[in-house]
């Protein structure tokens, strides 16, 4: 069985693929900027989609500490737990 984090990581990959209009392979260790080639604007667009997917608010100020897909998944899971 996949853990919650794995599922979130997979969803991030799917959403990134939709926003970037190309298939995106991700693992929790993927560096969002370096490995996925996501610039700051694209990251914000991905986050906006993820807010709709998970029905939650992901404040942009929280992205300062996000470097990897795993970081983003952890943030989303934390915010979901709080909601």
């Amino acid at each position: 069985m996949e853990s919650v984090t794995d599922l979130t990581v997979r969803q991030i990959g799917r959403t990134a693929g939709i926003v970037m209009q190309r298939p995106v392979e991700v693992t929790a260790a993927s560096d969002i900027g370096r490995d996925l080639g996501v610039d700051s604007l694209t990251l914000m667009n991905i986050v906006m989609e993820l807010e709709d997917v998970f029905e939650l608010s992901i404040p942009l100020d929280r992205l300062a500490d996000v470097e990897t897909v795993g970081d983003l998944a952890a943030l989303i899971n934390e915010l979901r737990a709080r909601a």
Partner: protein
Amino acid sequence: MGLLDKHKDYSQRYQAIRDAGADPFNVRFEAVISPTEGVVNGRPTVLLGTNNYLGLTFDESCIEASSAAVHAHGTGTTGSRIANGSFGGHLELESAIAKFYGRQHAMTFTTGYQANLGIMSTLVGRGDHLFLDADSHASLYDGARLGHAEVIRFRHNDPEDLYKRLKRLKGQPGNRLIVTEGIYSMLGDAAPLKEFAEVKREMGAYLLVDEAHSLGVLGEKGRGLAEAQGVEADVDVIVGTFSKSLGAIGGFCVSDMDDFEVMRVVCRPYMFTASLPPSVVASTLQALKVIEQQPGLRHKLTSNAQRLYDGLKAMGLQVGPECSPIVAVTIPDQPRAIAVWKALLEKGVYLNLALPPATPDARPLLRSSISAAHTEAQLDRVIAAFAEVSEEFGLVNEPLQRATA
């Protein structure tokens, strides 16, 4: 590891643009002769990328006011207003701006960028929520980062999307501030302020509108989009700049909020920078009078904008969704955008090249800003130059449909 190594990616991308034979971020004007004419590489050039909407940079009355002020009060204030005090002109300008907008309070800043940094970081703080239109100007994003509010983006010009995101916060404490612009600087599209105002009222939020590109451009009195759409009463805070239609530099904020004056001792981008020099204050004051006294400038601007917008659209080029003094043409890819920009410059037309991620939909733009000072002959020259590059670079697939009128 050098300090600048982290910017290597940008550095390589910039070099690639320069290798393509253009440096759109470093254009040098050998001379600027009028609001609409300059000299670039020894060539007379139509200026179509200067945000000089009313052409007031060379207005005789503004130049005279500015020149008299520099003689009377010196070249600079050499410090901030909280430390060095205010000059009479600062107070006069603030009361003129407040009166122009029919508001109780006005505050001026040294640049428009600083106005946004200051206002965004001070109006909301820890525990508050900032709702930012996705296409907001960099200064609004930077201001949002400088404060400690939680920042949520909503889809560009989409009141439904804003509503949905506000609703997600239901029950959470803290103020909500919605931030939009009047006219967006890249595509020239205007915000649906009426609908935003409805959302604001229903959700008990505050509304801020940045009228940087719409002051002097929209509305019967030239106050901007909120005036044009009849929603000024719903807009709690207006910010703007002196550097576009008013032809100088500086920023401002107006509001009717009680206790607004506390901003002067808590708003750091206001407090810790030198204030506007007397010459700038004087020309801005005069430019405000010109806006009020000469509504004809605004009408000329509108008809000039329509002329260029219609001309480019008829050619089959992809222009923005509505006509405004910003006319942007979307170019399919970056190499062509750079080449077309360069070719236009060589034909004596200067406009802005905007590249992703600074553009809304990840595609490059050739962005024009029209001025009331443009002549019809200049605009026709621009349209002719576009027709040539459009053919040369295959910007239009369909056969050209020319307006016969």
